[in-house]
C-alpha cells in the first residue's frame, strides 16, 4: 500500500519520458520534458533529498524548460526534420540501451549491505561549523573546491554563449525576450510578482545555511524574477559590454576566492574556515554567489548579443 504512490510516480515519470523522446513535434517534446522535471522533483522528495528537489524544480525543470521553449519558438519552421535512422540501426540502439538499463537495474536491485555512506562523517563536523543543513556544509566546506570550479564552469558557459555573437554586434545587448504581442496579464504579473519573488529568493538563500534551500535555489528564483520583468518588456536585457554586469558575474567567484585564500591566514589553509566565523563567512559567500548565479542564469537564457552597442 505504502508503495502505491511511488509506483504511480515512477510510472508517470517513465511515461512522460517516453513521450518526450517519441513525440513528433518538438514543442510537445519540450512540454513532456517540463512534466518530467516536475515529477522528478517529487521523486527527489520521496528520496528524502529536499535540497535537490528544490534545485531540480528551479533549474532542471524551470530554467531548462524556459530555455528549451524559447529555442522552440526561435527555431520557427527553419528546422527541418533530418532523415530518420534506418530500422536496423534503431533495433541495434534499442538493444544496446536495454542492455545498459538491465545492467544498471541489476546493480540497483542487489545493493551492498550495509550501504556505504559518508553521512556520519558529514554529520560529525557540522557542529564545528555551526550550520544546520548538511548539504550546504558539503557544498561550501567539505567539497568547496567543486562548488568554486562549478561557478567557473558557469562563467565559461556565459563566455561560450557570448562567443556566438557576430563580430559587429559585440558588446551589444541580447535580443528582446518579449513574446509576440504585449499582454496585460503578463505585465501585471511582472509588476506584482518580483517583490514577492525577491523576498522568497533571499529567504531561500538565508535559510540554506540551516534548512533546505541555498545559493542555487535562491539564485534561480532571483533570475526568474529578472527574466519575468524582461519578458514583460518592462526592462531590456543589458548590453554585454557593461562593466557593472561583468562585475556582478564575477562577484560571487571572487568573494569565494578571497574567502578561500583568507583561509591561509585565518585558518588551516585554502578554503578552510576558522570555527568561530565559519557561519558568517559561508553565508556571505552564499549571498555573493547567489547574486552572480542570478545574473549568469538570466544572461544565459537571454543568449548572445543581437543588437549593436549603442
Amino acid at each position, binding site marked *: 500500500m505504502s508503495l502505491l504512490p511511488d509506483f504511480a510516480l515512477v510510472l508517470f515519470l517513465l511515461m512522460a519520458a517516453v513521450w518526450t523522446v517519441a513525440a513528433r513535434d518538438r514543442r510537445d517534446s519540450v512540454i513532456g520534458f517540463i512534466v518530467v522535471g516536475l515529477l522528478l522533483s517529487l521523486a527527489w522528495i520521496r528520496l528524502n533529498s529536499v535540497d535537490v528537489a528544490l534545485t531540480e524544480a528551479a533549474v532542471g525543470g524551470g530554467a531548462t524548460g524556459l530555455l528549451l521553449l524559447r529555442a522552440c519558438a526561435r527555431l520557427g519552421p527553419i528546422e527541418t526534420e533530418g532523415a530518420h535512422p534506418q530500422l536496423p540501426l534503431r533495433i541495434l540502439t534499442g538493444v544496446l540501451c536495454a542492455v545498459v538499463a538491465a545492467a544498471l537495474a541489476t546493480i540497483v536491485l542487489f545493493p551492498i549491505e550495509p550501504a556505504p555512506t559518508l553521512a556520519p562523517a558529514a554529520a560529525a563536523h557540522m557542529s564545528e561549523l555551526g550550520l544546520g543543513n548538511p548539504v550546504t556544509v558539503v557544498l561550501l566546506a567539505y567539497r568547496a573546491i567543486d562548488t568554486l570550479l562549478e561557478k567557473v564552469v558557469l562563467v565559461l558557459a556565459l563566455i561560450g554563449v557570448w562567443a556566438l555573437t557576430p563580430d559587429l554586434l559585440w558588446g551589444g545587448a541580447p535580443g528582446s525576450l518579449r513574446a*509576440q*504581442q504585449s*499582454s*496585460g496579464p*503578463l505585465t*501585471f*504579473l511582472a509588476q*506584482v510578482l518580483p517583490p*514577492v519573488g525577491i523576498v522568497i529568493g533571499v529567504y531561500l538563500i538565508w535559510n540554506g545555511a540551516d534548512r533546505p534551500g541555498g545559493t542555487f535555489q535562491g539564485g534561480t528564483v532571483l533570475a526568474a524574477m529578472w527574466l519575468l520583468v524582461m519578458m514583460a518588456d518592462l526592462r531590456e536585457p543589458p548590453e554585454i559590454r557593461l562593466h557593472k554586469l561583468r562585475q556582478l558575474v564575477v562577484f560571487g567567484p571572487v568573494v569565494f576566492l578571497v574567502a578561500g585564500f583568507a583561509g591561509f591566514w585565518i585558518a588551516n589553509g585554502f578554503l578552510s574556515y576558522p570555527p568561530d566565523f565559519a557561519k558568517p563567512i559561508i553565508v556571505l559567500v552564499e549571498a555573493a554567489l547567489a547574486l552572480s548565479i542570478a545574473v549568469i542564469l538570466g544572461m544565459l537564457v537571454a543568449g548572445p548579443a543581437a543588437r549593436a552597442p549603442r
Partner: protein
Amino acid sequence: MNVLVDAFTIASVSAGMFFFLAGTVGLLRFPDTLTRLHALTKADNLGFGLIVLGLLPQSPDVASGVKLVVVWLLVQLAGASASQLIAQFASKGGPPA
C-alpha cells in the same frame, strides 16, 4: 478536539481532491480551449484552496501556516495570469505555429 480537527482536514482535503478530479475530467472532455481552461482554473482554485484550508489546522506553528497561505496566493496569481495568457492566444486564433 483533535478528532474534530482531523475530521475537518479529511473533509476539506477530500472536497479539494474532488474538485481536482472534476477539473481534470473537464480538461479532458470539454471541446475547446476556453471551456477547458474554465474547467481547469475554477476547479484548481477551489480545489487547491480547500486543500490548503484543510491543512492549515495541521501546521505545527504560525510560520508554516503563513507559508501555506503564501503558497496558495502565489498559485492563484500564477494560475490566473497563465490562464489569461492562454485565453489571449486562444481568442486570437490558436497558439502560434
